[in-house]
């Protein structure tokens, strides 16, 4: 226990903290895998748009008295498959459709959250949905969160090679008898799972941080996809747990007014992205020729 003695007294015994740590860890791991694939595909914006559509789902779930996780997931799935069905030839067109979906998602979120707030039933709903609810998760949340994590990891393990190939070179996958379209759908499902759990952690509109941040940092530190994903997961995990600890401790720093945990996590993710590649980039990633 001496190793953990720097932790505040009672930190690990607190139920809300335990739930936060588990949820944060699951979010970090799934987002790392889905995020690296999203970066390879060059779909940061589409991934971000998905988070805003998932916000609408989360808000709707709260309106009907359900937990937001199912709503986040449903929203992200609907958004993802919606974008997939619109026929798109050029990348700029794809960004545009992502933008339109994003606007629609935020519009619907605004509508539903406005309803919830004006009905006076849950005045905190905008913050819960948009900026997360990590410290106020109900005890029953661990099971669904773990299932989301397990499904994403199993999908990643089953389809590692075709998923990567579909992202890097879809034509080659077709030649080998695989289906790029199926892999796009698998990727979308993993993305939706990542967005849903991250939305619980740092909020729907900040879940992009988990998805893109560690993956982008890891990409600059490692060239091999598998190692990049592992590195991204570790970075996300450190930022997630560090942010939880930071938010917990900040209660003492600023006269009993804790900093939002979503701010702390995002701050660590961004700091890692700014600091690590310049320091370790050359060490870990041999410079490419030419």
């Amino acid at each position, binding site marked *: 226990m001496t190793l953990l003695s720097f932790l505040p007294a009672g930190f690990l015994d607190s139920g809300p903290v335990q739930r936060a740590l588990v949820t944060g860890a699951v979010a970090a791991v799934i987002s790392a895998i889905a995020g690296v694939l999203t970066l390879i595909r060059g779909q940061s914006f589409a991934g*971000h748009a998905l988070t805003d559509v998932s916000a609408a789902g989360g808000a709707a779930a709260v309106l009907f008295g359900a937990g937001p996780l199912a709503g986040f997931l449903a929203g992200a799935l609907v958004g993802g498959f919606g974008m997939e069905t619109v026929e798109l030839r050029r990348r700029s067109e794809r960004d545009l459709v992502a933008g339109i979906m994003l606007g629609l998602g935020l519009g619907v979120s605004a509508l539903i959250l406005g309803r919830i707030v004006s009905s006076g039933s849950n005045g*905190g709903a905008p913050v819960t949905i948009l900026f997360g609810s990590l410290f106020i998760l109900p005890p029953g949340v661990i099971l669904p969160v773990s299932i989301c994590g397990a499904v994403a990891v199993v999908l990643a393990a089953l389809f590692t090679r075709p998923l990567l190939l579909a992202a890097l070179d879809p034509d080659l996958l077709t030649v080998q008898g695989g289906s790029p379209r199926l892999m796009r759908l698998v990727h979308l499902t993993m993305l939706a799972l990542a967005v849903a759990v991250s939305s619980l952690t740092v909020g729907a509109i900040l879940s992009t941080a988990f998805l893109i941040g560690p993956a982008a940092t890891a990409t600059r530190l490692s060239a091999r996809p598998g190692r990049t994903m592992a590195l991204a997961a570790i970075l996300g995990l450190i930022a997630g747990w560090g942010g939880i600890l930071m938010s917990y401790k900040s209660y003492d720093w600023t006269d009993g007014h804790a900093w939002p945990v979503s*701010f702390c996590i995002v701050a660590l993710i961004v700091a890692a992205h700014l600091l690590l590649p310049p320091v370790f980039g050359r060490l870990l990633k041999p410079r490419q020729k030419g």
Partner: protein
Amino acid sequence: MFADYMINAWIATSLVAVAAGMVGFFVVVRGAAFAAHALPLGAFPGLAAAWLLGIAPWSLILAFAGLGAFGLARSGEKAPHHTATALWLVSMLALGNLLLSRMHAYSNAVFAVLFGEVLGVSNTQVLAVAAIVAVTVIAMALLYRPLLLSTLSPDLAAAAALPERRIATLFLLIVALVTSAALPLVGASIVFSLMVGPASAARLMTDRPGWALGLSVLLALSTVWSALALAYEADWPIGAFVGVMGAVWYGVGRIVRWQSGRLRRG
């Protein structure tokens, strides 16, 4: 609906719609959607800080939007993964969240910053919006031809020795200006819809740039007018309707495109 205290809201949102419609056209043809989304949300801490300090928001919003525009221009609008854009966006959102969490009505403030608050616009606010929009329109008029050339035909623009990078930076600054005018009214998350929805529909409806630009402004105006009417009548947050309407316009645009394609093919 047209009571005295509403008049300012009508004027201010109409001005914003004109500017957003114009700039939106170029956002769409240049494929700068992510930047146009990140700039308003990146200015969110400016508004939050202004509220916290109890000062007029314009200078702080302009500062954050301008900073974002320069940063995004430097990182390259067309960088392959948009990573810098995404990280700028989330850092600023998180910072805004930290600032707002210090306010008493935390949740209400989050809602107002993101989704807008148009009722009770003061005379000074209208003047500030008018000034920003005037600058935007003038800048757009001056930049119209070089911007169009560098967007539609980079080769021709290179041949004409247009300063490509400076044009890109100026364009992002104009987006930042529109953002600043619109942010306190329609909300950080909705400025983007107002820029992209009407403009993307207009571009699908006609291939002539001038017409598309005009149509984009008209559609943007009709969007904010209906949004404001609904906000007043049904007590909807103004942003809700703007976001949904953007998607509706895009759908209409695609239908028009598809129909006219069928007619042309016979």
